[in-house]
């Protein structure tokens, strides 16, 4: 099932499958957008998907507010023993995960196919 939310949270599309919910984000994940993104991801995590897959292919910029949002949602997903997986990171976005050492903490895949089976 595909859905295109219109809540200004950077969530461009949500696709729900048996093994994974894939969330496509589009835009800068910064202090301006992180609060609404957090709310949207918390809502999706509450559906307890086996895997919450975050597609970052259309995210050109992310700051520590975005990192904080993902860490907080990761905790919620881990609490019900689900997985949170990222793919499609640009070099810029990947560098933020690396600087904060979260590249070792999060599961980061090269593409969606890997992510939905990780």
């Amino acid at each position: 099932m595909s859905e295109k939310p219109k809540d200004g949270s950077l969530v461009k599309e949500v696709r729900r499958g048996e093994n994974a919910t894939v969330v496509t984000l589009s835009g800068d994940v910064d202090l301006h957008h992180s609060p609404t993104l957090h709310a949207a991801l918390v809502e999706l995590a509450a559906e307890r998907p086996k895997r919450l897959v975050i597609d970052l292919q259309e995210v050109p910029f992310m700051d520590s507010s975005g990192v904080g949002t993902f860490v907080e949602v990761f905790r919620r997903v881990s609490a019900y023993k689900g997985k949170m997986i990222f793919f499609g990171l640009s070099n810029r976005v990947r560098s933020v995960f690396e600087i904060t050492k979260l590249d070792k903490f999060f599961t980061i895949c090269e593409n969606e196919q890997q992510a939905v089976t990780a």
Partner: protein
Amino acid sequence: MSQSNPVELKITSSPSCLAAVRGAVEEMARYEGFGEMDSHALVLAVDEALANVIEHGYSGVEGLPIEVTLSAVRSSDHRAGVCVVVRDQGKQVDPGQICGRDLDDIRPGGLGVHIIRSVMDEVEYSCPNEGGMLLRMVKYVSSASAEKPEA
């Protein structure tokens, strides 16, 4: 170190202002010959500095003044660089207390200062007598990625 033709940006403490400042910083970095990742590092540091002012200096209150000044500088070994000064009128904090937190503690928040100190070559916080905080930071083009500036 040389310094000329500073660019001054006056914004208010609204998160919606961040994208415009990032755009200006990116343009300055490109003009000074920064490569993609050096440019991103500078943009990220300025974004984090402004986010800290908005969230902590002004406690999330919007509409309060922030000034950002960008200047071209040169390192002692003649690499191009950009000096950024962020001036606010928010709460004063002992500069010695402004430090990054332990990254092994995986939790949201508190990463901005760590990022700034990680990616910038010089970082100095001070408390001007007139009130507020002043952050001066400098990023130079990495030796390996030095590029000639556009004409």
